């Protein structure tokens, strides 16, 4: 039953793909986070490798441009001793008119063991997971506006690292929620892990009013949304949103919804400030906050590699 509802789980309820955090059992998430914490020390070794994926081929299929996420997946796979193949898929197969499923069939024939997929369309990694060979595992590295589950997991790792317990937290997600796959994955994970107060904060053009069914309280005023928060997750404001019908200018956004030190004082004194990066200084976040004592933006990046190692090693170890 669980497996039919969640194509990412096998009949034993174990993770075989990571496509979305929505509906994942809480213990599966904690298992990933626990596994990630064992990988953190790998970074500090003289030889930064463990042999868990030795002999396995991980294909990075980025149908949408990304440097940072692709690199962190590559580092994670290499630290697990996998062979990593980066395909410039957007400019090769797709440009030549090959369908997505034909591309996947061809790459499967090259005996890939794992696909790390980023795609501009929501749901593309699901389609791939449904049609690839049974032994191949799929990791969603971001699909459209839908999900970015490894980012969601590394955010949960970060929160758990600094706050220990999710049960009493107020988490404010600030910015462009309507276009953000990170926000959706965070919201699902926070909800599963039992966070009692999840807030979505931003202007009405960026924060939909109908988030209540996802368990989110919507605030259209930064001060109200940030008050007494334990965790603040800032979202990146993409350049194309800054002028046009979504927002009038970067300057006005910074003035009304930018996170500045005086606004941060409304949050709890020990609050942490997170951001999936890359940050826009002076647009969504003031440098004094990004570089300040509450900021955990750089530790997030470090945790991200350990979390991706955990995801890849767990799904590769489970039978289809």
């Amino acid at each position: 039953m669980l497996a039919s509802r969640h194509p990412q789980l096998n009949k034993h309820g174990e993770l075989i793909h990571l496509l979305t955090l929505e509906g994942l059992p809480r213990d599966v998430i904690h298992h990933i986070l626990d596994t990630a914490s064992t990988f953190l020390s790998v970074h500090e070794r003289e030889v930064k490798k463990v042999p868990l994926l030795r002999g396995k081929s991980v294909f990075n299929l980025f149908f949408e441009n990304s440097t940072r996420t692709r690199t962190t997946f590559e580092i994670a796979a290499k630290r697990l001793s996998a062979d990593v193949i980066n395909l410039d898929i957007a400019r090769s197969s797709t440009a030549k008119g090959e369908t997505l499923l034909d591309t996947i069939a061809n790459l499967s024939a090259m005996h890939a063991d794992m696909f790390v997929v980023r795609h501009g369309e929501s749901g593309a990694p699901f389609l791939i997971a449904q049609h690839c060979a049974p032994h191949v595992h799929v990791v969603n590295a971001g699909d459209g506006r839908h999900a970015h589950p490894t980012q969601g997991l590394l955010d949960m790792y970060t929160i758990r690292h600094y706050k220990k317990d999710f049960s009493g937290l107020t988490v404010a997600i600030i910015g462009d929620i309507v276009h953000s796959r990170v926000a959706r994955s965070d919201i699902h994970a926070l909800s599963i892990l039992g966070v009692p107060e999840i807030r979505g904060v931003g202007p009405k053009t960026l924060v939909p009013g109908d988030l209540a069914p996802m368990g989110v309280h919507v605030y259209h005023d930064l001060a109200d949304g940030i008050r007494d928060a334990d965790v603040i997750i800032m979202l990146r404001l993409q350049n194309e949103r800054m002028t046009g019908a979504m927002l009038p200018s970067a300057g006005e956004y910074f003035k009304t919804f930018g996170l500045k030190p005086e606004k941060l004082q409304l949050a709890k004194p020990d609050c942490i400030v997170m951001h999936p990066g890359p940050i826009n200084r002076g647009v969504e976040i003031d440098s004094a906050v990004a570089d300040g004592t509450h900021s955990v933006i750089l530790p997030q990046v470090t945790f991200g590699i350990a979390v991706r190692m955990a995801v890849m090693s767990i799904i590769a170890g489970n039978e289809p």
Partner: protein
Amino acid sequence: MKILIRKGRLVDPASGRDEVGDLAIAAGRIVGLGRVPADFQPNRTIDATGFVVAPGLVDLATRLREPGHEHEGMLESELNAAAAGGVTSLVCLPDTDPPLDEPGLLEMLKFRARNLSLARVFPLGALTRGLGGDALTEMAELTEAGCIGFSQAEVPIADTSILLRALQYASTYRYGVWLRPQDAWLGRGVAASGPLATRLGLTGVPVASSVRAWNWTVCPTSGEAGLSPHFPSSRPRPAMSRPTFPPT
């Protein structure tokens, strides 16, 4: 300073009063309405026979011609005309040249109107840059500079997705929006559609022009967006009473 205004037609919508009588003012305040206190000694007496004496009128949609159209009217001439007609406060539309889409333009207008000390001016800022219907203005900045709401004047936003965003953005901060409920294409005529327009050979504005536009103006921001009473077509009211809500 005590002023006695005698024998005017006193009209007060708040109390429903409409009768001929006297009005006594002392130090800028009304001290007698209809009947004047027995000991009232005016410095000045005005005979208002044949005139209406009423609270200052507020014009909710005025066109001031400055900047850009000074040949049609100067700020002073327009405000003089307003005061002469009993209009003590006016809301002006942003379709000047350049349109009121920069804080500096609004500050200058407010400053000049204040110095003239005729009628009070409450400007509306442009809802989109240059009234072009493409990009939002910096509404928070414009509000700080003194505008009381936003408008497209008589330039409808053709792209309804941008209109929706503009209303959503404005309602984030509870800013009012004055919209002319007239569709950009259907509303291009010069007279209400009907036998008269047909007989005179005038391009008609069909009821659907207002209905379609009205449906948009009451979309998700209803209750927070304002409306100007411009209804170019002949039968908008029945549609107003039962608006349909488009999906958000």
